């Protein structure tokens, strides 16, 4: 006979077996093979039987010139782009997501429309929304330029997605449009889980909307926001399809993943690309650890 908590511990471990099996069998192998690949000279021809070459894909001095991922200014350029993209798109998404969530709380005849509408940007596959925005932002027959010209803001259509000055901003806005519903839904769920009294209490105290939100609601939905930020942040740091679909060839918006993909699949530098992927993972890992420490998200998994 076992005590309840012993039985529970045993049950808990049994319940974790499927997750562990799936993650071990399917995640670990590709991870290790990527790590290994990054230490080889794998190219298209010898992909299945590459030679071990050590760390030269990371850095190598050959006849006085530095080679390797770490010596490639384009890589660091893509790191910078990715960080800029992540910081701005996440900030915008959190602000929009929380605003949407609060607006979704309004109870009136339009509420179902709002709740349905918020889901639409997110339900549209990226491959489609990228095309849609590309289309809407086209300089000559895009509706966006048409509107701006009509309003007298622009004289001539602008190529928003390719202009080096605007392409990053455009990408950030499209991404925010597409993914703020994700934040909105998590925050909305968090808001709905709050006791009604919390919202009521704020009203009785006569606190106005913003202070009520800041002092009462915000701290309570912080866990939901933190989870949303972590997963959105991980996605943003690995951003690929949007940038690839809108403007794959541009240096101005090239992200780390686009860089790694290009090395692997366009240049067939599988070893080099794997090294870039490994670096990318390291960078993401460091950022994630710092973020989790700072936001004390790891406290979320402590028993109260």
């Amino acid at each position, binding site marked *: *006979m076992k*005590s309840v*908590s012993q039985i529970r511990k045993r049950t808990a471990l049994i319940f974790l077996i499927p997750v562990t099996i799936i993650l071990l069998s399917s995640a670990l192998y590709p991870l290790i093979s990527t790590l290994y690949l990054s230490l080889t000279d794998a190219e298209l021809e010898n992909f299945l039987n590459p030679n071990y070459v050590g760390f030269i894909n990371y850095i190598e001095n050959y006849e006085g010139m530095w080679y390797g991922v770490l010596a490639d200014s384009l890589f660091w350029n893509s790191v910078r782009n990715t960080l800029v993209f992540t910081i701005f798109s996440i900030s915008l998404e959190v602000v929009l997501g929380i605003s949407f969530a609060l607006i979704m709380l309004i109870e009136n005849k339009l509420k179902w429309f709002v709740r349905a509408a918020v889901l639409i940007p997110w339900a549209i596959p990226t491959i489609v929304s990228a095309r849609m925005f590309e289309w809407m932002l086209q300089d000559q027959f895009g509706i966006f330029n048409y509107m701006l010209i009509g309003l007298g803001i622009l004289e001539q259509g602008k190529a928003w997605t390719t202009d080096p000055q605007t392409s990053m901003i455009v990408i950030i806005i499209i991404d925010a449009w597409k993914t703020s519903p994700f934040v909105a839904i998590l925050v909305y769920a968090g808001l709905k889980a709050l006791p009604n009294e919390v919202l009521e209490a704020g009203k009785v105290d006569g606190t106005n909307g913003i202070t009520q939100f800041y002092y009462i609601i915000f701290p309570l939905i912080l866990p939901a926001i933190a989870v949303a930020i972590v997963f959105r942040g991980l996605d943003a740091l690995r951003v690929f399809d949007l940038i690839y679909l809108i403007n794959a060839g541009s240096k101005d918006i090239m992200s780390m993943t686009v860089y790694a993909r290009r090395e692997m699949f366009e240049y067939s530098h599988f070893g080099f690309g794997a090294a870039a992927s490994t670096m990318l993972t390291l960078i993401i890992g460091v950022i994630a650890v710092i973020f989790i420490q700072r936001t004390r998200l790891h406290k979320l998994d402590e028993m109260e």
Partner: protein
Amino acid sequence: MADINVNTVNKYFGDVHVIKDISLDIKSQSFTVLVGPSGCGKSTMLRMIAGLEDINSGTISIDGQVVNDLPPKQRNIAMVFQSYALYPHMTVFDNMAFGLKLEKRSKDEINERVNEAARILQIEDYLLRKPKQLSGGQRQRVAIGRAITRKPKVFLFDEPLSNLDAALRVQMRVELAKLHNELDATMIYVTHDQTEAMTLADDIVVLDTGIVSQKGSPLELYDKPNNMFVGGFIGSPKMNFMPSKILSKSADSTEVDLMGMSKISVPKLSASSSEGDAVTLGIRPEHLVVNGDADGSWESKVFVVEKLGDVTYLYLEKDGEPLVAETEGHSEIKVGDSVKVGFPAGRCQLFDSSNQAFK
């Protein structure tokens, strides 16, 4: 029906030693209240009896059977939680029937038992409602009802009334007492409220940082606290404590000096103390004599007067030592008045330097 024996039980949370070598005997059909300030380990004790927490060492037995490794359902207990812990998606009926369904009782029996419990608790009209449609008091009744239907040998209550407002709390308290009489079950009740403890308990167990400070009937605790902690914890307003010194010892009493104001010969003894020792004199507000004859007396100024109707509390002070005294409800004494306070020797308690009471 069920004796409960707790034998040298220890419990650690990580490095924190929350229950220290506790031994307790709880008599069958008694109403025992575990009382103490928050963090004293009373809830943990209850949860160990329930089987929700593991025991690190020692044994707990119910009816002579060691239950350390028995899951709650085999201990024949039921528990009522402070937060009610009703299943939000089930009706009141289903909430109360859930345990019985798990025991695979027949439909008729379930119906009968739930209706019986509902009748006792006067919640028959709400059986088909969901918890969120009920008031706090009604939810608490459902939570109790859920315990009753299972006809357990032992009822465990974890601060069941602390989420209710004052009036409701008094009412529920009476009903719980009635329930205890009706059900003839062993009840263990955890609270931090000494009034609840005093009114409900056959036996009170006062816990202090993981140890049993004193166990006894309410009046035993009230009249003969074992130590300063119990003396201070039981009774409201709190017992007054004042520093004093032993002047002399005799066969049946100890003469102490009361802050140089007067001498009192308290009929209490302690073998371990000797003349000149610093001790603490304790006396309850209701035992102080205001403007009347008593063994020792003082002059003091009144700086707060609390009129409660039936009684009046006077907040006094002497040389930095606060003192609360009770007097009649319609007292004429005002703030700023000087009153004479008397210390009847027979009502005084003495505590030695390790806070243990003189016998």
